[in-house]
């Protein structure tokens, strides 16, 4: 308590700057007078009495110091003092300060920018309460190479009652739905979810309600929850929206609630997060087939909330035990060779898992730039130290303590770093709209990236930490001046400078090494990107546009006017016929979304049963199965290797036929002729409803492999079916020709809607754009790392230039004497350059070692280039050495041109 009281008084004295110094001086004067009187009484002459009194009292200044220390808070007072002095020093050399602050602004600004992306994506990926409890449950059949095969209703019930979860929800993976009734039919994205979906996420409606979690009535629940965005955009934020009826795919749904503004669905792309509508459904009973253990809802995802306090590992342990006992209980449904497993994946992982490595790479790269900036500023500080030798020596001579000097210099460097950090954040803040446009749209949580308090705290923390770490070494070395030597030599040099010179060399070497690491990383990424960009996709995207539509699929199949392929064929043929009449169109074809090369996030994968290979549905391997019209292959220039393509005689009532690609032929019929082989494709959504056994489908042709699924993957098995035999809801129209992308979309809309006014037309884009979007995250990483590498190269160049200049400056006298004694200018040049070369050699040596480590760490991000790619390593080593030499050449030239007479005279 007494301590607190003391602290409070000190603090108030410190703040109000009250000083009792006056009082003390008076008191001490009294004290001296008393003592002198006493001395006089003891018989001393007055003068001697005063002298003795003063001697006894001791040094008044020391007493004042201690008295003052007792009275106020010396630590803070010194800090204020240091800061004031530091700001004076910063203002005194504006050029130096500007360079240092600018360098740090670059380093801290760039780091903060990347951090703000990481903050929004990796650190806060799930905007739901207790996000660590949320998991995705994934069923795999590793025995047949199938992953994410969906869940069956009995399995769902098992999970619900397992005691592991608070609640388990099934959701669709997101799909389109048509909103009709307004002027223009709208394509909206929706998710079909079990009623407990929002309860699992822990979200509630801002208006109305979500679904009643206890309502698991089988079949479709004609209620809809809409997003805040849709509510504002389409319904003008109508407060009376609850209770309104919307016509979705020709079914009437009643709006029961509006989700709050910040709510977004889970998923890794903005497409998946921007769900407009949620429809409630109970996934058993009509119109779904009766629950059957081995009948998995393939396009459903399962998300669940763990019981509180249960770790994922512990839950996985319980789940494994449950799976084992189910396998024993139902051996027929879970054949051993499929090796059925159920995995828990943190929901976070499913959101950011795919971009984590790219972001970590970026953060690493920007961290290196920050490090290089720091090293550069430390270097500058050291360089300035030599100029301030006299000042420091003088202050030491006047009694300044070394710790005091270090604190002083530290305050200076801290001030520079913090100012740099603030400048960086300020630039970032004003440029954020521009910068956000650089970020690829496929990055999750794009909308959440912002400069918030957390990001600001990060920036300040980074400034302070780097300022302390990189300010300490210069401060330490600066305070180590040899006092006498410096004063005697009038600041021409000092014994401390050798140490500082070594420190600077170490800094420059590390700078060169760090930049080489960045250069090589950027080079490898550039080569990967270039290889991917130049890869022959196996199809020709030039002059091709794709435009999408959606055919409504009402809940009651008999109300669907596009129920069968024959019914849909009328529409598709008419759309294609009209498309061909549009200006510029040379060819037209149709397909489903899975046929859109690289333009769909989830391929529809179906179990493939081969004739003659006895296998149950749930043991079968899964394969991608796009639906296309006969013109598709020609339009995309995918060559036929054997057999034939679809023709106009392949109709719903003729035998089902399919075309496979080379990869499928090699995977499923190795060393055999696949032509004429028959397969069944199970678990198609329509079969699931009707329960009918799918017909045999005959392979009639083999086409060449095309990279329509992923540019990085050469051979993904595909089985194509004709749209005239198999209807598709998600329609994509492909057009080739001299097209005007701006006009063609509206022309297509007019044409399609003049056939059926209820069809929405959306997402018109060229295949070149689709391709380029599919590479956007890679391009973003490459561009960013490339930019950072260029920055690093520039900073390293400046660093080596500064160091060599400094060395030359220190050696002016020596060089002048050599020149005066007749040394060749070339010798001088060589002497200076040699120093630059040795620094560069050491730097590149270290850099190559570092780059080897880094390139192996990032090998997952590389494509078609080895992590130890010799040309990249060699090329950038040469580039860096060249820059180092060029940077040393200027000071070397200056040294060579020294005029010995003037130089020696002026010294």
């Amino acid at each position: 308590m007494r301590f607190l009281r003391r602290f409070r008084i000190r603090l108030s004295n410190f703040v109000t700057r009250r000083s009792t110094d006056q009082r003390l001086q008076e008191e001490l004067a009294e004290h001296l007078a008393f003592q002198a009187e006493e001395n006089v009484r003891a018989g001393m002459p007055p003068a001697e009495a005063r002298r003795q009194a003063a001697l006894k009292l001791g040094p008044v200044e020391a007493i004042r110091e201690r008295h003052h220390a007792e009275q106020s808070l010396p630590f803070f007072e010194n800090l204020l003092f240091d800061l004031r002095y530091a700001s004076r020093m910063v203002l005194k050399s504006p050029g130096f300060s500007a360079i240092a602050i600018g360098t740090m602004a670059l380093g801290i600004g760039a780091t903060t920018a990347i951090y703000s992306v990481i903050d929004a994506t990796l650190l806060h990926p799930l905007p739901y309460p207790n996000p660590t409890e949320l998991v995705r449950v994934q069923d795999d059949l590793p025995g047949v190479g199938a992953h994410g095969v969906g869940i069956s209703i009995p399995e769902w019930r098992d999970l619900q009652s397992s005691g592991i979860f608070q609640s388990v929800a099934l959701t669709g993976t997101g799909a389109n739905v048509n909103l009709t009734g307004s002027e223009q039919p709208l394509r909206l994205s929706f998710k079909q979810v079990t009623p407990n979906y929002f309860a699992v996420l822990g979200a509630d409606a801002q208006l109305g309600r979500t679904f009643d979690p206890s309502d698991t009535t089988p079949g479709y629940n004609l209620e809809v929850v809409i997003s805040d965005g849709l509510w504002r955009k389409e319904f003008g934020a109508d407060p009376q929206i609850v209770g309104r009826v919307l016509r979705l795919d020709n079914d009437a749904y009643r709006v029961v609630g509006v989700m709050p503004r910040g709510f977004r669905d889970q998923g890794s792309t903005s497409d998946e997060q921007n769900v407009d509508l949620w429809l409630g459904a109970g996934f058993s009973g009509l119109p779904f087939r009766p629950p059957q253990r081995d009948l998995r809802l393939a396009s459903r995802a399962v998300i669940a909330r763990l019981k509180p306090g249960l770790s994922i590992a512990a839950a996985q342990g319980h789940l494994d035990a449950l799976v084992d006992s189910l396998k024993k209980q139902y051996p027929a449904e879970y054949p051993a060779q499929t090796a059925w497993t159920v995995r828990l994946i943190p929901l976070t992982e499913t959101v950011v898992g795919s971009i984590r490595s790219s972001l970590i790479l970026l953060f690493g790269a920007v961290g290196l730039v920050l490090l290089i900036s720091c090293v550069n500023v430390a270097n500058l500080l050291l360089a300035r130290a030599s100029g301030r030798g006299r000042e420091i020596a003088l202050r030491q001579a006047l009694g300044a303590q070394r710790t005091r000097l270090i604190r002083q210099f530290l305050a200076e460097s801290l001030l520079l770093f913090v100012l740099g950090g603030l400048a960086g954040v300020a630039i970032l803040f004003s440029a954020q709209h521009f910068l956000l446009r650089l970020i690829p749209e496929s990055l999750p949580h794009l909308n959440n990236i912002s400069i918030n308090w957390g990001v600001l705290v990060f920036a300040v923390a980074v400034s302070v930490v780097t300022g302390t770490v990189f300010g300490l070494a210069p401060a330490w070395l600066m305070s180590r001046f040899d006092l006498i030597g410096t004063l005697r030599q009038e600041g021409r040099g000092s014994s401390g400078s050798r140490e500082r010179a070594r420190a600077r060399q170490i800094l420059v070497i590390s700078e060169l090494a760090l930049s080489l690491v960045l250069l090589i990383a950027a080079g490898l990424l550039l080569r990967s990107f270039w290889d991917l960009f130049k890869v022959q996709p196996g199809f020709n995207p030039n002059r091709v546009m794709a435009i999408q539509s959606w055919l409504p699929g009402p809940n009651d199949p008999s109300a669907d006017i596009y129920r069968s392929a024959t019914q849909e064929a009328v529409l598709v043929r008419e759309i294609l016929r009209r498309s061909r009449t549009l200006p510029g169109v040379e060819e037209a074809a149709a397909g489903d979304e899975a046929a859109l090369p690289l333009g769909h996030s989830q391929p529809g994968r179906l179990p493939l049963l081969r004739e003659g290979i006895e296998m149950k549905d749930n043991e079968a391997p899964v394969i991608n199965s796009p639906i296309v019209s006969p013109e598709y292959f020609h339009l995309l220039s995918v060559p036929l290797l054997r057999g034939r393509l679809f023709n106009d005689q392949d109709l719903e009532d003729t035998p089902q036929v399919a075309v496979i690609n080379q990869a499928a032929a090699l995977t499923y019929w190795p060393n055999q002729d696949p032509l004429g082989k028959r397969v069944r494709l199970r678990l198609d959504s329509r079969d699931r409803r009707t329960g009918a056994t799918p017909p045999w489908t005959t392979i009639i042709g083999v086409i060449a492999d095309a990279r329509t699924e992923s540019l990085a993957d050469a051979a993904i098995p595909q089985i194509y079916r004709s749209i005239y035999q198999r209807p598709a809801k998600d329609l994509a129209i492909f057009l080739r020709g001299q097209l005007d992308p701006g006009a063609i979309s509206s022309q297509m809309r007019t044409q399609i809607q003049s056939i059926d006014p209820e069809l929405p037309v959306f997402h018109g884009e060229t295949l070149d754009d689709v391709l380029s979007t599919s590479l956007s995250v890679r391009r973003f990483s490459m561009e960013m790392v490339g930019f950072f590498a260029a920055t690093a190269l520039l900073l390293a160049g400046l660093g080596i230039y500064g160091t060599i200049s400094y060395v030359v400056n220190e050696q002016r006298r020596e060089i002048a004497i050599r020149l005066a004694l007749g040394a060749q200018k070339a010798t001088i040049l060589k002497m200076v350059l040699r120093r630059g070369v040795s620094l560069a050699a050491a730097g590149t040596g270290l850099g190559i070692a570092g780059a080897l480590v880094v390139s192996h760490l990032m090998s997952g991000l590389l494509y078609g280039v080895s992590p130890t790619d010799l040309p990249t390593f060699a090329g950038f080593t040469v580039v860096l050495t060249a820059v180092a030499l060029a940077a040393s050449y200027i000071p070397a030239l200056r040294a060579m041109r020294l005029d010995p007479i003037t130089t020696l005279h002026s010294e």
Partner: protein
Amino acid sequence: MKEKPDVLQGTLALMVLKTLDVLGPQHGWGIARRIEQISGDLLAVNQGTLYPLLLRLEHEGSIASEWGVSENKRRARFYRLTAAGRKQLQAETREWEQTAAIIARFFKVKAEDLP
């Protein structure tokens, strides 16, 4: 802000408090002189320590000070014990006596006394 653990410093505070307790209000020089006298001039009070100490005791609330006029008609700052200071003096006296007693016992004890 950190004080060195200095024995003299600790005892000096106690001496100051006791002096004020016995003599009543007193100025700085008077306190110093008194301590010297009592110690039989064995202790020379370092003024460098005394005045900061007085300020600290005042900040702690153990003593209070005001300007007054001394016996020889001089203007001087007088320090006096406060109620809190008196309580503190009592507590510290007890502690000190206890410590002194323990130390005394240590000095008295001989090897054969130990079991």
